[in-house]
């Protein structure tokens, strides 16, 4: 493979999935966001979003906190330090491979 393109073979598969890439991009820009915000911004169904968040949480990239706002349940998501570094590495790898 040509130069930087070799890096594409080693892309983080946890992040390198369209829905999870969108979720991680949104969380990268936020301190925290709730489930409803992520669902609206990604356009995913509840089940789909839950499944992808579980995958990211399992990899240690996302922290999920279930709490309450008043009497209503609230699910807050934020990127961990590991998740931030993983996303930054992902971006660098893609940037190097695509030459931009």
């Amino acid at each position, binding site marked *: 493979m040509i130069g930087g393109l070799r890096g594409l073979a080693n892309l983080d598969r946890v992040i390198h999935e369209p829905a999870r890439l*969108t979720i991680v*991009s*949104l969380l*990268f*820009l*936020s*301190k*925290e*966001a*709730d*489930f*409803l*915000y*992520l*669902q*609206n*911004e990604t356009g995913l169904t509840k089940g789909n979003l839950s499944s992808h968040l579980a995958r990211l949480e399992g990899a240690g990239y996302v922290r999920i906190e279930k709490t309450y*706002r008043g009497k*209503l*349940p*609230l*699910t*807050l998501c934020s990127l961990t330090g590991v998740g931030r570094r993983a996303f930054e590495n992902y*971006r660098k790898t893609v*940037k190097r491979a695509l030459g*931009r």
Partner: protein
Amino acid sequence: MTGNDPLVAAQRAAERYWNVDGIAEIYVGCLFLLVPVLTFCSEHLPFGPLWFGVGFPVALMGGIVVGRPVIVAIRRRLTYPRTGYVALRRRPTDPAGIALTLIAVAAVVLLIATKGDWSAGVYAATGLISGVINIHLARSMGLSRFYFLGIVSIAAGAALALADPRVPLGMSLLWGVVGVSCVMTGGITLRRYLRTNPAPPPEQA
């Protein structure tokens, strides 16, 4: 990454969310409307000059300090149950935005320095600076209604510079026009937002 970085688009979308419901605009518009209100009080009520001399700085500082908590409290009732909650990380300073603002301020200082009549310069200056800030917000967030607010500010400043009324009246008119415009665009946005995003059933967050 360059301007084609999808993260840039995500950043803009996330910042647009702060203005999705128009609540911040309505709040800022109400702060601007303090100028004509306090000017009226200082000219027609007892304790005259104190209304503006003391009242305005106190109200402005207080308005800035409590602004975010007030807007967030309103959003907890209206926005977050409908389209969700997000707390953004601070973005690094935008050099283009700072440069634009500095150029506007320099142009204004030059205008005032070269023109003998300072009051007309102040109206033009205020309108221009407010306009530039709004246009910068429109560019950075991709919200076209801020272009409208920018044009209104610049036009109001220019019109008052030509008419050149005495300062308290002129500043009241300028901030009154800008304040009403903000409340109007914010109100339209809020109405559209509430129509597009109905309140969720009581059992959902």
